[in-house]
């Protein structure tokens, strides 16, 4: 999971896989996904007990992406 200077740079990258084109994510979407409780609450004392619940919430958010992009289906 890498950051690039732009989508054009991703497509120019020598290891870009056209079959994984749907793996291109706008920066704002990455920030949004990685602001969910699974990432925000890591320092909470009960994080490990709750991580299953957080993961479900993350999966639901990713599923929203997957509605139109099969690459993101779980």
């Amino acid at each position, binding site marked *: 999971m890498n950051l690039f200077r732009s989508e054009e740079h991703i497509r120019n990258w020598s290891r870009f896989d056209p079959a994984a084109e749907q793996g291109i994510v706008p920066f704002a979407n990455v920030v949004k996904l*990685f602001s969910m409780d699974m990432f925000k609450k890591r320092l909470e004392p009960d994080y490990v007990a709750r991580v299953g619940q957080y993961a479900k919430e993350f999966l639901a958010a990713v599923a929203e992406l997957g509605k139109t992009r099969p690459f993101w289906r779980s």
Partner: protein
Amino acid sequence: MSSPDMIGKVYGIILKRMVATGQAPHYTEIAAEAGVPVEEGRKALHDLIDAKIPAMWLYPETDYICSFAPFNNLPTQYRISVDGMQKWFGQCGFESLAVSWLYPGKTVRIDATCLDCGAPIRVEMKDGVVLKEDPKGLAGYVSVPFSQWFQRFPYA
């Protein structure tokens, strides 16, 4: 098998150490901090890794922590600075964007290089909010389909 309480305790010991120092503790240090015998600490570390909490792994066939999200214990191109001090590495570009949640009220800067052209990328965040994105128009890329992330975290 370690108890859920012990697994949670070990998780907290490792994450707090990485937040403070940028380096993961050895299992002997984990054992000491958890107040258990050394071998119990080693087993608890492996039980935590096997608990499939995203995303962490050991160096293959060792007891050494390689990666512990959102950090990496092995240098990556994602250099993380907190209030101007660089001593952390992000696990990946995406997880680097989650680091600021671990430093409330502080400015977290991510300095990376674009894998295509080698030119710099810089992001500054505070409490999850992007303060600066340089250049504008950054994009993320993952080549491993989401359904395979848990089997292939190091490659995702």
